[in-house]
């Protein structure tokens, strides 16, 4: 099997989000491999260790720093990495991103058996790109997977958590799977593997290399645009209603009606 694992470089989970005007202040931010993508990489590496997969290609679209996220994927055990980076990509929405990723898959031979994604990226938090890639390629998909069994050349059985139980999907390969917390416990990249990652190939493509016109991506090629960022309002103190039951109920109803206007 040939597996593609999609990797995004995102701000560290500890990042204190600050604004500069109405844009994100990116100075001093430390970037990491999206934690959900780590589940995807780990799952692919386990399939390779179980001799179910021959090659794992880690793929990212992003600025040059996304190389670090890809190096991490290589240190966990991916075989090689591909980064699409181009100034014209700035401002691409999820659909524009999905189209670029589809082009990368074509460029890399198009013969992937399994496309693994994190279920969401912890920065944009749109959850959309994997499903858009599946739709563009007309592939079956299972999202938010917590258990995965793959029979190379045939099918994948994916378990998703739904309210009150589990949903089990059987998918014909090739298929798109998005990985959730609980699927596996990603390993720490060992020092020897960090050294090996340095020697593994990392190919960089520009839009030209993929035959994409700049008008198809970035702000121009996107149907949605981020207009501005706002920090959530600071959390206020709670309100405690005290007294006899009748008084409490009356006061609470008044509060819900008049102050927060939910009833």
């Amino acid at each position: 099997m040939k597996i593609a694992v999609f990797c995004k470089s995102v701000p560290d989970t500890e990042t204190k989000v600050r604004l500069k005007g109405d844009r994100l202040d990116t100075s001093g931010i430390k970037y990491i491999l999206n934690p959900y993508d780590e589940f995807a990489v780990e799952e692919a590496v386990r399939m390779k260790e179980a001799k179910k997969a021959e090659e794992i290609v880690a793929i990212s679209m992003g600025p040059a720093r996304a190389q670090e996220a890809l190096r991490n994927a290589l240190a966990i055990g991916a075989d090689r990495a591909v980064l699409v980076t181009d100034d014209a990509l700035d401002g691409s929405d999820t659909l524009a991103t999905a189209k670029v990723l589809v082009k990368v898959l074509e460029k890399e031979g198009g013969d992937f058996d399994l496309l693994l994604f994190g279920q969401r990226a912890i920065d944009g938090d749109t959850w959309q790109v994997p499903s858009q890639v599946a739709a563009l390629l007309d592939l079956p998909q299972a999202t938010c997977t917590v258990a995965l069994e793959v029979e190379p050349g045939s099918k994948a059985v994916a378990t998703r958590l739904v309210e009150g139980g589990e949903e089990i999907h059987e998918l014909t390969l090739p298929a798109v799977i998005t990985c959730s917390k609980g699927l596996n416990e990603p390993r720490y990249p060992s020092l020897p593997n960090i050294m090996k990652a340095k020697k593994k190939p990392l190919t960089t493509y520009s839009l030209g290399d993929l035959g994409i016109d700049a008008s198809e991506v970035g702000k121009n090629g996107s149907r949605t645009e981020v207009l501005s960022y706002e920090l959530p309002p600071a959390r206020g103190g709670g309100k405690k209603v005290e007294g006899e039951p009748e008084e409490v109920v009356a006061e609470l109803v008044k509060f819900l009606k008049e102050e927060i206007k939910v009833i």
Partner: protein
Amino acid sequence: MRFELTEEQNMVRDMVRRLVEEEIKPKAAEIDKRGEIFPEIYQKLAELGLFGVYIPEEYGGAGMDVVSYAIVVEELSRGCASTGILVSAHTSLVVDPIYKHGTEEQKKKFLVPLASGEKVGAHAMTEPGAGTDVASISTTAKKEGDKYILNGTKHFITNGKEAGIYLVFAKTDKEARHKGISAFIVEKGTPGFSIGKLEHKLGIRGSSTAELIFENCEVPAENLLGKEGQGFYIAMECYDGGRVGVAAQAIGIAQAAFEAALAFAQERAQFGQPIANFQAIQFKLADMATAIEAARLLNLKAAWLEQEGKLFYHHSAMSKLMASDVAMRVTREAIQIHGGYGFIEEYPVERHYRDAKITEIYEGTSEAQRLTIARNLLKGIGI
């Protein structure tokens, strides 16, 4: 001048920090209390290649560099100072000298299991009557045929309980002072070698400190490291590198105390506001962060000089002197910021304070560092 870590060094720092946050720091108080590092931690360190950071892969190491090693020890010590010294004493004082002075056979037999973390190493020089004055050790090694017979007692031996391989220093010439010392590789279980009492200590309680007893202990002659009489030189050389490790440990301890104090100062309210609003506390935090940064940069320089094969012992002495002093100051101030909470076990800073003290003592006392630095200066080195 390039003032940043390489991509790999950053990856090592991130990985070890994560390991520490998830698996070591949450257990550090219990390690301190129980007086031992848990087996699953040894296993993790070994799996990740942390027992032979800068040893080539062909000898079981990770093939990285001394700067990465300093980063590893600092980050481990930030979570647990005992785990930091486990790796530091093992690497600098056992793995390093066998790598530098071992024969190919010795490297295959001893370095590979040590650098891969299959076995822990312990360095046995100190005796009840010989601390800083190394040349006065009284353990003897007498050659008989193809063996050496070791007799004597070592004490205060770090990793003494857990080690599988010991680097033991003994006099092959009783009359000579330092020129009579030789180094031997001794395996656990060798007849005539036993472990005596374990010390109860002020700090780094998770790190074992053992007495080693040699009674007509027969060591194969091929276990002599280097030549007869070379032991003192081998030891002094590895202490130079060991100072980078102990300085890194001290910096890690200081960093942990600083982080605890910074968080506490923002949470703790007095007189209706967080104490971090008070200038008295702000000045302390500023001084602590400044001192840590300076110590860290000096140590990274010492590590870099060592890696580049340049003269580094002057800088490693300065670094160890400074870092241990910074660790003492910062941990003391961290307690002061915590007030009464700093004095009780529920908060980590009392442990950091206890752990910091040893860094002024082992791997050469602060006084011995000053002597080394001054003698270098008077010889025209480091000016």
